[in-house]
């Protein structure tokens, strides 16, 4: 294996970087991909904030205490979701210190991964809650009707919500099971 590794060195000599390319890259023209990564999180946060503003401006249309409660819950969930997004960008920025020893970066990433999967479950639950509250609010804002007067709405949203949450939680757990296991094992190995 060592020979294969060393033979690869001869190959890389053939495709090496010229000083000119390095020269171009060290200019500001080069756009680092790492800086572009936060865009989806920023867009997500912006959408949440815009939705919050929209609900805020139309809050006067909510004429019952129940609907006002639904409006407040929606605003809170949207704010929590945007705060979670901003925190995840902040986490990325904090860990972006390439001078740290490799093992420290690994520890940070493994810990972040475990925290991320916990957050995913909370996010899914909150997103479902938001889906229900947004349907109630949109129906009121755009057609002036209180959809919650319909008994079918509650039967449907609770039964569907329960099935959705059970399946999604199982899916998330199964999907990330191996990654979680690997992160946990790696963290254990990194313990001094």
């Amino acid at each position, binding site marked *: 294996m060592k020979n*294969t*590794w060393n033979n690869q060195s001869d190959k890389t000599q053939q495709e090496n*970087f010229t*000083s000119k390319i390095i020269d171009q890259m060290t200019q500001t023209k080069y756009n*680092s991909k*790492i800086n572009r990564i936060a865009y989806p999180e920023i867009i997500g946060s912006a959408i949440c904030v815009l939705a919050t503003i929209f609900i805020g401006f139309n809050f006067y249309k909510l004429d019952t205490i129940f609907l006002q409660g639904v409006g407040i819950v929606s605003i809170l969930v949207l704010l929590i979701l945007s705060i979670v997004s901003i925190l995840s960008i902040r986490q990325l920025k904090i860990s972006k210190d390439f001078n740290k020893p490799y093992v420290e970066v*690994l520890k940070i990433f493994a810990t972040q991964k475990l925290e991320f999967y916990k957050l995913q479950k909370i996010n899914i639950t909150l997103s479902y809650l938001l889906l229900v509250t947004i349907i109630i609010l949109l129906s009121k804002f755009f057609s002036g009707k209180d959809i919650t007067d319909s008994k079918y709405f509650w039967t449907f949203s609770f039964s569907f919500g329960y099935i959705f949450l059970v399946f999604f939680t199982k899916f998330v757990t199964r999907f990330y099971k191996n990654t979680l296991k690997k992160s946990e094992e790696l963290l254990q190995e990194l313990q001094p």
Partner: protein
Amino acid sequence: MDKKDIFISAIKENESFIYKIASVYTNNSDDKNDLVQEIIYQLWKSFDTFKQKSTLSTWIYRIALNVALYQLKLSNKRVLTIPIDEQILNTQGTDNSEDDEKWKIFKYQIDNLNLLDKAIVMLYFDNKSYDEIAEIIGISKTNVGTKLLRIKEKLKSQINKNM
């Protein structure tokens, strides 16, 4: 010699390792080239933070490995492992040399290691001393020795299993 000249000559001296890290942490030539560029860019950006506590080469290795790790996390891609038979099948009828096939088999074995072991074994193959590996990775010299023994055993058993 100005800052840029020092940087360019340091990159030239260590480019082989940068390319090999990029090959190990990615699966296609586009991603590989992107990673090489990202490593060089981040090295240039961090060049002022090099404090000469370690050698320039040790510092480059550390930054390169960390950028590769960071890129891997951000791209959210696991380095996919292709079953060995499939890899060999894919190379048949192409102009790939024997070295390319050996490299693919090598990569397959390396991909089965966790990210810590992968970095240690790459540095070992690159003839870094235990002291240097310990400094780059951030573990003790004794730990490097113990881990290398385990990694060698793991690689041996993987190879035997595939034969």
